[in-house]
């Protein structure tokens, strides 16, 4: 079915950014516009989500060129879920930015660039054309370069060099893959490719191309041998920016991996082993990295890497239960990781530092905020019935059924280390007596009550989303079950796009 409404979630952020660009130096107006734009984007994506959930896959042909000749936008349940989560995260971050980002950064165009980033993410989730996906990726990375370097502190620039070099390299790999794929099939449309790739006689070149995409998306989603840029750059920008990066950018890489390796290159035995090995090593290296870090955001960066491994391993098992678990984990992870980086920003506001050794006593001083944060931390660890518990249950059960004992063991070890690290964070930051260091400054008390609310409200919104995911797991499982079905049987997708 053709429906032009699916592009609206992309356009709303484009227009918000454009209006903000003609209002330079008016930071308050930009702030209000940003929150309003994200709110409209959120309502539109809820509407789209309900439409897809009730109906089926919707498509839109750009400039009315028939698929597979023109660029096509496809909204299946997986894309729409990602768009919905992006808009929830964007809404929370835009509210947090009002206080969490300094005025100097706003004057240099923080808000427009933020909206271009969200636009790029939504576009990448919705497109059904591999070259168009490349273009959206570039929109995302160029916006993220600017957000990462905005402010120009030394640490930021040093992190940005690594981030830039690895991301441009990833795009080059991705583009090389696209070139080869176009050469051997003569099409760029994903649905058309899904039909044409199995018909190619020489499957070796198909496997080779798959490796190009694996490396390209692997760098973006920070899997084991390719993740080193992430912990060395994500702790540098303001927390609002780090929240978008940590919550959404790596998930874009994962989304692309899932899209390509379920629709275009169905994993064979070799690829399954590759994915499982990557999953196990990513979990272990990320978890061990998180153990030794004392800066909260550096520790969270390693936890991102660790939890990417859970999802990649789920793709490696490639059966329905594992895919349900993997997609559920992505849904849970976007909400929680975005929130954790916002919490890191709040802690910095409360104490002026993010070093765990210097923090302490927040629970005694701010019990309500601490309890709110505890809900998020419990969700991340996966205390039943909160959101982290259900996907791990699916992944573990599927791993044991398929005799992937290494993966099962690393899920347990990874979860245990996450629990240990989070318990350490809780006791160091919240329970320990306040440090007597005179360096500690509480910038939070000086804020006006309205601005205090602006800082805590987004954390509460995302915590509610996490609670909803955890307590309403039956609904989420129904959704992810349908997504997993769409991944395994791709005929509805190709039929919706090509109309045959």
């Amino acid at each position, binding site marked *: 079915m053709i429906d032009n409404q699916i592009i609206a979630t992309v356009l709303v952020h484009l227009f918000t950014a454009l209006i903000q660009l003609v209002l330079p130096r008016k930071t308050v107006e930009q702030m209000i516009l940003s929150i309003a734009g994200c709110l409209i984007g959120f309502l539109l994506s809820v509407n789209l989500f309900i439409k897809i959930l009730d109906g089926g896959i919707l498509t839109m042909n750009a400039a009315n060129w028939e698929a597979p000749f023109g660029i096509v936008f496809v909204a299946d349940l997986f894309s729409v879920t990602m768009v919905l989560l992006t808009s929830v995260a964007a809404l929370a971050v835009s509210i947090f930015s009002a206080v969490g980002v300094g005025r100097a950064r706003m004057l240099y165009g923080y808000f427009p660039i933020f909206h271009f980033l969200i636009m790029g993410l939504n576009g990448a989730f919705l497109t059904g054309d591999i070259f168009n996906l490349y273009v959206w990726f*570039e929109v995302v990375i160029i916006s993220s370069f600017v957000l990462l*370097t905005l402010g120009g502190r030394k640490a930021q*620039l*040093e992190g940005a060099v690594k981030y830039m070099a690895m991301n441009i390299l990833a795009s080059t790999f991705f583009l090389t893959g696209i070139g080869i794929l*176009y050469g051997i099939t003569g099409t*760029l449309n994903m649905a058309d490719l899904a039909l044409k790739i199995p018909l190619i006689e020489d499957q070796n070149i198909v496997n080779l191309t798959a490796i190009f995409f694996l490396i390209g998306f692997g760098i973006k989603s920070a899997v084991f041998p390719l993740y080193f840029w992430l912990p060395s750059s994500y702790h540098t920008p303001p927390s609002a920016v780090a929240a978008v990066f940590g919550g959404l950018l790596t998930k874009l890489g994962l989304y692309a991996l899932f899209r390509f390796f379920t629709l275009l290159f169905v994993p064979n035995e070799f690829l399954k082993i590759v994915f499982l090995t990557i999953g196990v090593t990513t979990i272990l290296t990320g978890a061990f990295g998180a153990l030794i870090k004392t*800066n909260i955001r550096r520790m969270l960066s390693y936890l991102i890497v660790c939890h990417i491994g859970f999802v990649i391993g789920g793709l490696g098992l490639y059966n329905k239960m594992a895919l349900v678990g993997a997609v559920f984990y992505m849904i849970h992870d976007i909400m929680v990781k975005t929130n954790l980086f916002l919490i890191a920003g709040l802690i910095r506001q409360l104490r002026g530092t993010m070093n765990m050794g210097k923090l302490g006593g927040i629970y005694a001083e701010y019990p309500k905020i601490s309890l709110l944060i505890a809900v998020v931390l419990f969700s991340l660890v996966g205390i039943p019935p909160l959101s982290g518990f259900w996907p791990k249950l699916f992944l573990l059960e599927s791993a044991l059924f398929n005799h992937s004992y290494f993966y099962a063991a690393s899920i347990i070890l990874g979860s245990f280390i996450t629990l240990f690290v989070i318990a350490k964070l809780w006791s160091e930051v919240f329970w320990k007596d306040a440090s007597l260091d005179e360096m500690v400054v509480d910038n939070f008390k000086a804020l006006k009550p309205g601005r205090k609310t602006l800082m805590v409200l987004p954390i509460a919104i995302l915590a509610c989303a996490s609670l909803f995911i955890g307590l309403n797991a039956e609904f989420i499982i129904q959704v992810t079950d349908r997504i997993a079905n769409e991944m395994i049987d791709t005929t509805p997708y190709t039929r919706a796009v090509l109309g045959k």
Partner: protein
Amino acid sequence: MELLLVVLIGALYASGVYLILRRSMVRLLLGIILLGNGTNILIFLLGTITKGKPPVMAADMSVFTDIYADPIPQALILTAIVISFGLTSFAIVLLKRVYALLGTDDLDTLNTPQEEDV
């Protein structure tokens, strides 16, 4: 023509990878540019090169009967060139700023401990 392009692509990729693996920031930048150009020529080559056959047809026909040049690879390359131009100019400015701050172009020195870690 094809063989020449194949050799050229190989040379561009090889030198690009070699330069990226060096420590100097300028070489990193040059390596990224060379790799990007190698990719563009790869797309051009794989889109099959047909000489002197424009992708236009007579007004009274509805399908192509003759061999024609595929315009899509050129559109892709054009897009990729524009994007890599933007990325490269950003990268140049970023590396120049980093050089001005650190006074060296050695990539191994990009790990100054932060005030928050100490």
